[in-house]
């Protein structure tokens, strides 16, 4: 089991690292978004400072969203998932490796880079820790919620609408609480963090399970 896990994980990681396709994509998109904000605001420093946290969260969301679609797609299209299924490879291993890698290559770099960008956007050092922690809880949640949605888009023609209409209701609460939590961090209240943690801990149990179910249904 562990052997399989490590094997699949290393394949996934290799895919992200060498198949330049994936690894750069989310991060590059994040950079693109972050760049667009100051540019499109036309250089109003004051404004930029105020929306810096929100904009980092928004960019993190977009970077996640844009890399969502391809999460299972290739493995589905070329029949790898099918072979996994036939060869009795437990799907929870697959789903968890996918989750870990997806977070590692979209969420994690963003977390690491976020202090930098916060300084770059807002010009001040406050809120760094708050943002860091909130992203640390929020980005895995993005990846987790994204998984069943990504699985859903496999079998059906209505990829687009599903992606959009299901991401809105499920991602929005996270981003709302995420932004709120940064603000409340500086004022010393952590209730939003606890809430996000609670969602995360529930999500990490149920969402992979749901993803597995949906994946199996899409194989037919």
């Amino acid at each position, binding site marked *: 089991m562990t052997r399989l896990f490590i094997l699949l994980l290393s394949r996934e990681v290799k895919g992200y690292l060498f198949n330049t396709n994936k690894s750069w994509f989310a991060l590059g998109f994040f950079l693109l978004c972050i760049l667009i904000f100051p540019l499109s605001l036309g250089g109003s420093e004051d404004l930029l400072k105020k929306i810096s946290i929100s904009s980092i969260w928004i960019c993190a969301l977009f970077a996640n969203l844009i890399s969502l679609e391809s999460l299972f797609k290739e493995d589905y299209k*070329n*029949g790898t998932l*099918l*072979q996994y*299924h*036939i*060869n009795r490879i437990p799907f929870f291993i697959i789903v968890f490796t996918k989750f870990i890698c997806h977070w590692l290559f979209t969420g994690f770099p963003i977390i690491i880079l976020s202090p930098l960008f916060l300084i770059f956007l807002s010009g001040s050092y406050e809120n760094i820790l708050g943002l860091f922690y909130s992203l640390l809880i929020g980005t895995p949640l993005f990846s987790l919620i994204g998984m069943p949605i990504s699985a859903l888009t496999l079998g059906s023609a209505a990829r687009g609408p599903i992606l959009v209409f299901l991401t809105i209701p499920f991602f929005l609460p996270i981003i709302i609480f995420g932004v709120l939590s940064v603000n409340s961090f500086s004022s010393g209240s952590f209730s939003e963090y606890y809430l996000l943690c609670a969602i995360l801990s529930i999500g990490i149990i149920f969402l992979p399970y749901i993803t597995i179910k949906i994946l199996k249904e899409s*194989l*037919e």
Partner: protein
Amino acid sequence: MSKEYLLEVKNLSCERNYKLIFDNVSFKLCSGGVVLINGNNGSGKSSILMCISGILEYKGLIKINKKYNDKIGYVGHKNALCEEDTIYEYLTFWKKIYNYKKDFNYVINFFDLRKYLEIPIKFLSFGQKKKLSFLRLQMIKSQIWLLDEPISGLDKRTRSLIINLITKHIEKGGGVIATSHQIINLRKVKNIMRVKID
């Protein structure tokens, strides 16, 4: 000679999207036996294999003998060929997945694929891709092989190689369920059963 069965299919019927594809299919695959599924295009041959491999939902009974290794080897139209990987990457990955201990040099030479080892799979020709899937098949330690049109699109030499493979697998006590529109010339195999569906 009442050999033990590897797999039993009884009264199998299958619906896809509320449409009945086939009905009442029954056969028994014995150790050392071959089941050839015949039928016209669209009669549901591939669907039967998919039912057996556990992908499609079905009604009826599919019993795999637990005494044997119950892994299944499947070669169909979609063969887990990741376009960007090279042949070498593909083979090492599946070798590890299947815990195949031997070196795969032998199997590669067998199919004349050595010189393509570092080529991405998307550059291979149709037949070469098929050969590659058979390489994967050889690394599974499984008794039951499901082959969907195993020899279509292959040249003479490869065809006979694959027939050799099948024969060997059967001699070792395995079983093969194959669909094909071409005649698979299994001279050395005695226990061949033909199932016709429509």
